[in-house]
């Protein structure tokens, strides 16, 4: 009998312990529907829209606007920079040679990286808009937040319009259907409308690194400047008008003040992406990617107070000599013998030759380690880490000046350009030419904005993008925009490839 009792006890134990609760308990993270109700939480969400501007790195690609590969892509297809193959280094399946020679493929990862940078940012903004929508804020509280978020999103769409043209427009976080392309004109209209609708609710005062009225004006000015190139409709006067709305900025007397490690105080910067190594920001290592492996010896006596560099990107041959000798901006390119600060002698490379940066590069496919002028625009000093602290400058007041100058020339009034250009050349220490024409504006844009990631867009507008340079032949017009990346096309069958590809 006692065993029957035992049996019953055991079976009841069995039933008691039969827990079938399969809900997940969260400890170190939070589900999105449990977040975004307090003002602090809303701030932390909206902050994510700005942090997304720094890009990301994941198992597929590095998508950083200041380095690999968004910046790389736009620089290497332009006439100001190159990543030559040096010995075994920087071959990487020939991707940089193809980019330079304008024979890039839809399969090239650097193109995917630029696409994903934009769409990851857009998706994130969409998700934040969704969260703000779900929060308990009043409509009056929500409106300025939406305006700021939509403007950040318009910035991403502007880049897509510029690089890929016919891209899908997605604005609803909850819609996970596979979208199809919009035409380049539709994307153009979307960017313009989003910025114009947001403008009334954006802040009028200067708020560093945030999307304010001034930033929206500047972006609209860019849009109108490139309107002919983008959609075939010139809008030069609209560009001038938009530039006239911008106020509160002056040129820094020292050109390089914009590119100091502590550059957040520049009076010239309209929009920048802030970085701070101690705050854990990543992706700001362009300097590390350009200087020679041994460059640290020129900075640090111990050789150890400056990070290793990767000896990659350089100025294209001919760019350095296009600067006048008295042009202070020429120091954005580093040329010449590199001196070991400990020994005061020229650094010797491990192949036994001196480390002397040269303007010339013997060949894109087989360059020497020391060849090519280096990107030296942002401050370089001892104590730096691989990830730099300087903020990435996106829009400067100098651009507002040169945009207006170009529009006046385009409108057949070169004299109208003089007041704007004079400010630029005076600061650079150069002379104004006798005749102001588009060729001059094109070259002056190169000199003023060298290594700021604008050159591809500018040369397409001036048409020189399609002409031969260095080792490159003529470029077919369809290459004014990049192909939709191959993996995107294969995972979304609703998309069609850009014409020509």
């Amino acid at each position, binding site marked *: 009998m006692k*065993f*029957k009792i035992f*049996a019953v006890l*055991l079976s009841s*134990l069995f039933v008691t*312990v*039969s*827990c*079938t*609760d*399969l*809900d*997940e308990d*969260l*400890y*170190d*993270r*939070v*589900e*999105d*529907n449990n977040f975004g109700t307090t003002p602090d*939480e809303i*701030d*932390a969400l909206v*902050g994510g829209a*700005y*942090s*997304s501007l720094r890009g990301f790195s*994941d*198992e597929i*690609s590095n998508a950083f606007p200041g380095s690999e590969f968004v910046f790389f892509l736009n620089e290497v297809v332009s006439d100001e920079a190159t990543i030559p*193959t040096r*010995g*075994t*280094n*920087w*071959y*990487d*399946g020939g991707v940089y040679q193809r980019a330079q020679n304008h024979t890039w493929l839809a399969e090239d990862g650097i193109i995917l990286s630029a696409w994903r940078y934009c769409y*990851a940012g857009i*998706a994130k903004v969409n998700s934040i808009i969704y969260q703000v929508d779900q929060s308990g804020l009043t409509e009056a509280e929500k409106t300025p937040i939406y305006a700021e978020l939509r403007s950040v999103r318009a910035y991403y769409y502007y880049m897509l319009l510029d690089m890929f043209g016919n891209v*899908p427009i997605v604005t609803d976080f909850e*819609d996970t259907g596979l*979208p199809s392309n919009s035409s380049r004109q539709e994307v153009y209209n979307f960017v313009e409308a989003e910025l114009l609708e947001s403008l009334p609710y954006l802040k009028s005062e200067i708020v*560093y*690194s945030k999307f304010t009225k001034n930033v929206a004006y500047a972006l609209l000015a860019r849009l109108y400047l490139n309107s002919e190139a983008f959609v075939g409709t010139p809008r030069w006067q609209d560009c001038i008008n938009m530039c006239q709305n911008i106020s509160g900025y002056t040129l820094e007397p020292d050109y390089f003040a914009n590119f100091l490690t502590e550059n957040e105080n520049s009076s010239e910067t309209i929009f920048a992406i802030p970085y701070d190594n*101690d705050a*854990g*920001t990543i992706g700001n290592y362009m300097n590390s990617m350009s200087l020679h492996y041994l460059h640290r*010896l020129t900075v640090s006596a111990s*050789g*150890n107070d400056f990070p290793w560099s990767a*000896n990659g990107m350089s100025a294209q041959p001919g760019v350095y000599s296009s600067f006048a000798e008295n042009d202070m901006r020429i120091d954005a390119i580093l040329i010449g013998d590199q001196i070991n600060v400990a020994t005061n002698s020229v650094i010797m490379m*491990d*192949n*036994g*030759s001196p480390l002397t940066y040269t303007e010339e590069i013997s060949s894109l496919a087989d360059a020497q380690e020391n060849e090519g002028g280096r990107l030296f625009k942002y401050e370089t000093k001892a104590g730096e880490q691989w990830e730099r602290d300087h903020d990435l400058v996106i829009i400067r007041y100098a651009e507002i000046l040169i945009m207006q100058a170009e529009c006046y020339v385009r409108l057949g009034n070169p004299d109208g350009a003089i007041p704007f250009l004079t400010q630029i050349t005076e600061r650079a220490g150069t002379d104004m030419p006798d005749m102001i024409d588009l060729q001059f504006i094109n070259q002056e844009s190169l000199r003023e904005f060298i290594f700021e990631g604008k050159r591809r867009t500018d040369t397409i507008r001036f048409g020189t993008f399609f002409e031969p340079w260095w080792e490159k032949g003529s470029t077919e017009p369809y290459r004014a925009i990049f192909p939709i990346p191959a*993996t995107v096309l*294969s*995972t979304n069958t609703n998309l069609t490839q850009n014409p020509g590809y």
Partner: protein
Amino acid sequence: MTLKNIHKSPNPFRTFKALFALLLLCCLSMTAYAQEKLLVTGTIFDNNGLELAGATILEVGTTNGTTADFDGKFSLQVTTGNDIQISYLGYATQTINITANTAMPLQVTLQEDAYALDAVELVAVGYGTMRKSDLTGAISTVSADELEKGVISSTEQVLQGKVAGLTVIQGTGDPSSGASLRLRGGTSLTASNNPLVVVDGIPGVDINTVQPNDIKTIDVLKDASATAIYGSRGANGVIIITTKSQKSGFNVTYNGYTGISYASNNLDMLSANQWRQYVRDNNVTGAIDYGGDTDWQEELQTTSATMSHTVSLASGAEYNGLRASVSYLDNKGIIKTTGLERLSGNLSIYQYAMDKKLKFDAGMFATVDKWNPLDYRIFERAFNLNPTIPVYDENGNFTSVDGTLYENPVEILTNRTADSKRNRLLGYFKTEADLCTDLKAVLNLSYEHNASTGNTYKPSYAILEGITENGYAQKTYGEYTNMQLETYLNYTKEFGKNNLNLMGGYSFLENVYEGFGAQRSGFVTNAFGYNNLGAGTNYRIGDVYSYKGKSRLVSFFARANYSFNSRFMLTATIREDGSSRFGKNNKWGTFPSASVAWRISNEAFLEDSSWLTNLKLRAGYGVTGNQDGIGEYKSLSILGAGNDSYYDPATGDWSLAYSPTQNPNPDLKWETTEQFNIGLDFSLFNFLNGTIEWYNKYTKDLLYTYEVPQPPYLVGTMLANVGELSNKGIELSLNANIINTDKFTWDANLTMAHNKQKIEKLSNQTYETDVIYSGSLHGLSGLSNQFSQIIAEGYPVGTFWGYESSGLDENGNFILSEEKTDIGNIQPDLSMGLAMNFTYSNFDFAITGYGMFGQEVLNATNMVLYNPNRLPAYNVPDGYLDSGINEPSPTYSSYWIEDASFFRLQSMSLGYTIPFEKSNSKLRVYLLGENLAVFTGYEGVDPEIDMSGLANPGIDRFNNYPRPTTISLGLNLTLGN
């Protein structure tokens, strides 16, 4: 307790309750009756006339029974007219009818019988055991005998080459790194392909919790009909480890060995003199001779000493027994500073109560591991550095020459501290109750705790991070616990020639993991090492972190076995698994199986066959799952606060942003593997035993972090169930007692396996994927963001995809095909293991080896080192000078794909045993050599390359830590009664 998340399954709860009610009913309906009893006494002998202890004496048709004592004597009250059955492992069972006239005491002699071994050998099948003769699934058993020979430092190595279809790859020679186990080709792209390990009935245990000396048997469940009882964790097979326990008498054992190890092979790089010769002969300009003569590989290596000591005590009596063991292992690595020091203890106790109707088992395993993690960056530098650079300069400081990946590797190795420790604890308490005749209830509670600490310090003078960070210290801690409750009822009934076994139960597992870490840099003094993080001056976001997570697995399971006349056997199992990790649309999965066996040799037409003593045909089908690839919270829409910060211009400070981190996937679920298996067991002439298995595995809903289109998705990748994968193969195991005389024995084991893998699908209605690039070459000079392999429909995992090379042109450049194509894959055509054991008088000799044939490896080491740009600054292999290669661009092509077939002579041992008279004591001394030779055409250091994971399977990338060759001298001492 909530039931709201039960979807899909037709209320498993109710089904199982009904089953239990039925089982209880069976029990309560039993009746007993009384008859006249007789005291039977006797002695049992073996066929050599020695008393046999431990034999089981059972009154047939009842549970009345006893065990023979140390002198083979027994006594038992038996009902007159009934039969008693006397059985013992490896002996033919005898049945004696007891009548009033039976002469007492009985003198019973049991005959040894290899065939009978099958009938009494119990094989662990999960939630119970089965007689080997009744098995219907594909299960291989590694016995204690096999465990005691050959390689003995880790439980994983014990299995090498022993089980057909089970591949054990020790990726490196680093004693602190584990091996990867893979059964029948692996079924997953993302998840672990390691089989589920069950220790003494506790599933999911870390295999290194158990030390080789404590193991009695290892049963490897291979096909789905055997593993489906473990449901969503059974797809990669199940390894059931049963530890030793003492049934009677006592014994004390000591096992110890000491050995030396050295690198079995190095790459032939230019020596300083070869380098100088090359520079002279070729009038190389710019070559700098630093005046030294350094073999950088050897500078990192040492001849190391290993020792191990294990002591165990065990005793057993009729009602209780215990076993305790303590072992210490100090396995020094052949790379300086590395090694593994392990202290482990195991204690187990059993106790019967209430006339043996209740049995309690309690046990505990504990291990402490200590090791010094290695900075693997030293290996590439050892191949780079010019051999004329001396390790130390004239002042005794490390030589430092500038260059890329050119830091002095001896300096890297020396000037940093890294100490890691891991504690493992497994405790269990098991209760078995005979509720009534034929019905047994089992309750098993277990607790597993695994905690790791890591400490690193790079002083301010240490190259690579130490100098740039001005001293860098880090401490990390991580732990997990598994709390598990399993309970089941087991019902056994014999009626006539029918044998029925029913089992049903419930299991609950809760896993909690948590940890934290901190790092600081900027130390004024190096005096503190990693012990005073507060003294660091630099602080960055991300320098402190902590985490915690939890998951639950709830299961109901049942099994039925039926056999008729020992000729036909049928097994059916079902398991319902619910996991908190699964998405809300797929919380519960069902995993059924069925299998049948026909023992043909028991049929009348074969019963008298003298040559075919056993012939059994088995067939089974089952569905199993794999849920390892799903981390916690992967199905949810989650916001993370990590390194994502934003600048607040108002304050100039940085604040943390909260951002979505993943695409939610409410459909996330286990990977499903359907497997069909046909097996044939046979014994010929009582000397050759064998098994042939054929299987067809098809895995659906493959988990992978698929690329999803952006837009619309938030994140570019998403964990989802999409692809399909098949594995088909055959396996052969042969075991032969070639010679078996009093003085000389020779037996041999051979296992062979062939598996063919194919990705069947990578897309479904929602996700489109043509190809996934894998086998990253990133980090190799000139090969950033390049991939060497594809995962694509129609190809196996690890397919090399690149240009076909047809050699070199007159300039020494590669001649390559226009298009990339399939240029090989890492899947072997044939894996095999071979073991032979000889005894002559008191000497024993054993030899084991294993091999893999037909697999290809990318020799990325040579691909990087055979480059004209390297000399004179960087070193090259000897072979480069005659290679004629003059291609400056690092080019991945079929030129660097090599056939990596090999056979490794894994161990050879010679022992001598001194028996002690009149006791079960003995002393054995032995000499053991491990990794004595590798037969291969592969040009790299070692053809056996890690194949686990997707990142770099089958890529020889500076082949890291060389495997050692070890020579040991050992001693086994057993003192028993």
